[in-house]
């Protein structure tokens, strides 16, 4: 296979995943939330159980007028949705789907790369918040930045624990080194990573930056039409990225009950779907954390737990 063809296939595959998986998660969220709350959710669009609801939403967003507030800082305001989306697209590039290089771009420092580019997302929050020229937006953005800066630390520490256990920073390498008993050994790191990941994508119960009952919609308040859709899409790609990272780092990625080599991609996708389901489930079941509770959880619970896990991982590694 010539190099360019392989490149096109790999990038195309990642692009398809980037466009399809968030829609699936979004639709699942509609239906799962609805059934958990004793309703039906979308039932009309597309005929069968409202499967085309998100496509209809997309068409609606495209038709809406794209408004930039007159007091806003135009270029920054218009650039922010792209800055929010691109990091997640880049992160999807290095997440392995299955064994034998079934990954957009195998990278020696894949884990580091993912954490670095996902961290850039804070910039989009600050940009959209400040450029909107709206007090609620700015408040939401500052909350978001404080939250993202804080939760970056437990996220990186928990990921470092797995990297230490596996002895590599490469994501496929971590999956290869993974063994079922790590579920127990790395359990605290998994919980810390998952919770910090939730906060990182600003999902409930960590949605203080967009708290709709007090800040209208936080830094998203002034956005309309396609740009709003992009920011919303970034949230759902975020779910996919965090679920995929949890899968790859802590749940053994493509390792399944049988036929890992042939069905590895299926196991990965199933695990990603399961973790995404839990993320949706948490949204329905937990009330929003207050700002001080949120910071307290991060600094007094998650960071110490992650540090203790690092000590434990190091001890076991040395002992083995």
């Amino acid at each position, binding site marked *: 296979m010539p190099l360019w063809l392989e490149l096109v296939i790999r990038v195309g595959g990642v692009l398809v995943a980037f466009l399809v998986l968030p829609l699936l998660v979004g639709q699942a969220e509609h239906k799962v939330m609805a059934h958990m709350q004793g309703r039906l959710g979308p039932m009309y669009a597309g005929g069968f159980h409202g499967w085309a609801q998100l496509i209809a939403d997309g068409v609606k967003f495209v038709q809406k007028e794209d408004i930039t507030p007159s*007091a*806003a*800082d135009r270029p*920054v305001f218009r650039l922010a949705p792209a800055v929010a989306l691109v990091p997640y697209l880049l992160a999807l590039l290095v997440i392995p789907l299955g064994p034998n290089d079934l990954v957009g771009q195998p*990278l*020696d*420092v894949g884990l*580091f*790369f993912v*954490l*670095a*580019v996902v*961290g*850039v997302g*804070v*910039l989009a929050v*600050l*940009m959209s*918040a*400040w*450029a909107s*020229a709206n007090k609620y937006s*700015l408040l939401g*953005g*500052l909350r978001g*930045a*404080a939250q*993202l*800066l804080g939760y*970056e630390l437990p996220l*990186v520490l928990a990921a470092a624990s797995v990297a230490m256990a596996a002895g*590599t*920073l490469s994501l496929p390498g971590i999956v290869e080194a993974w063994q079922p008993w790590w579920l127990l050994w790395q359990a605290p790191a998994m919980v810390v990573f998952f919770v910090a990941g939730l906060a990182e994508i600003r999902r409930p119960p960590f949605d203080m930056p967009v708290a709709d009952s007090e800040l209208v919609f936080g830094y998203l308040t002034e956005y309309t039409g396609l740009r709003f859709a992009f920011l919303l899409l970034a949230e759902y790609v975020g779910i996919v990225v965090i679920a995929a990272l949890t899968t790859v780092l802590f749940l053994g990625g493509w390792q399944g009950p049988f036929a890992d080599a042939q069905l590895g991609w299926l196991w990965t996708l199933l695990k990603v779907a399961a973790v995404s389901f839990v993320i949706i489930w948490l949204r329905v079941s937990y009330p929003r954390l207050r700002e001080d509770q949120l910071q307290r959880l991060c600094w007094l619970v998650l960071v110490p737990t992650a540090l203790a896990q690092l000590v434990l991982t190091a001890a076991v590694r040395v002992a083995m």
Partner: protein
Amino acid sequence: MTAVDALLLALGAVAVGSAVLVVATRHLVRAGLYLVVCLGALAGMYLVLSAELVAWVQVLIYVGAVVVLLLFAVMLTRAPIGASDDLDRPGWPAALIGGGVGLGLAALLVDAYRWTKVELPDAGTAERIGEQVFGSWVLPFEVLSVLLLSALVGAIVLSRPDIGSSAPKTRDGAGQERGATR
């Protein structure tokens, strides 16, 4: 000129251009955003020079944390949208010093290397950096980590006025009073 040279030149131009914009723009927050472009271009140069890990460290620490902290502080205090014309900036001395240092360093480097060709080293993988840092450079590494730790402790002490001021007050008997009012 190879592709590597061209990429380096282009990224260098982006870095220098955005760096000039950082100090020249009258929009406070945009200056911070230009800094992101500048540091990002620098990370790109590391990538071209096959120092992968350093490049992503640059993105994680500088773009993801330092600039964000900077923007955060600016937005908490004063971040007007649009140009701030009341900034007092000594333009000429700054241009003189900046330009002088830049030209001087460039002349020094050009003179030092002339037309020497330097082959790109092997890719800066995590493994190689780990071996170097914890092998031949382990002592400076440990010294630096102690320095960072003391800076961290110092930052905590400075940011908490109740740590430093309580000692003299207990000596003259005011400590108990303070404790009671809290």
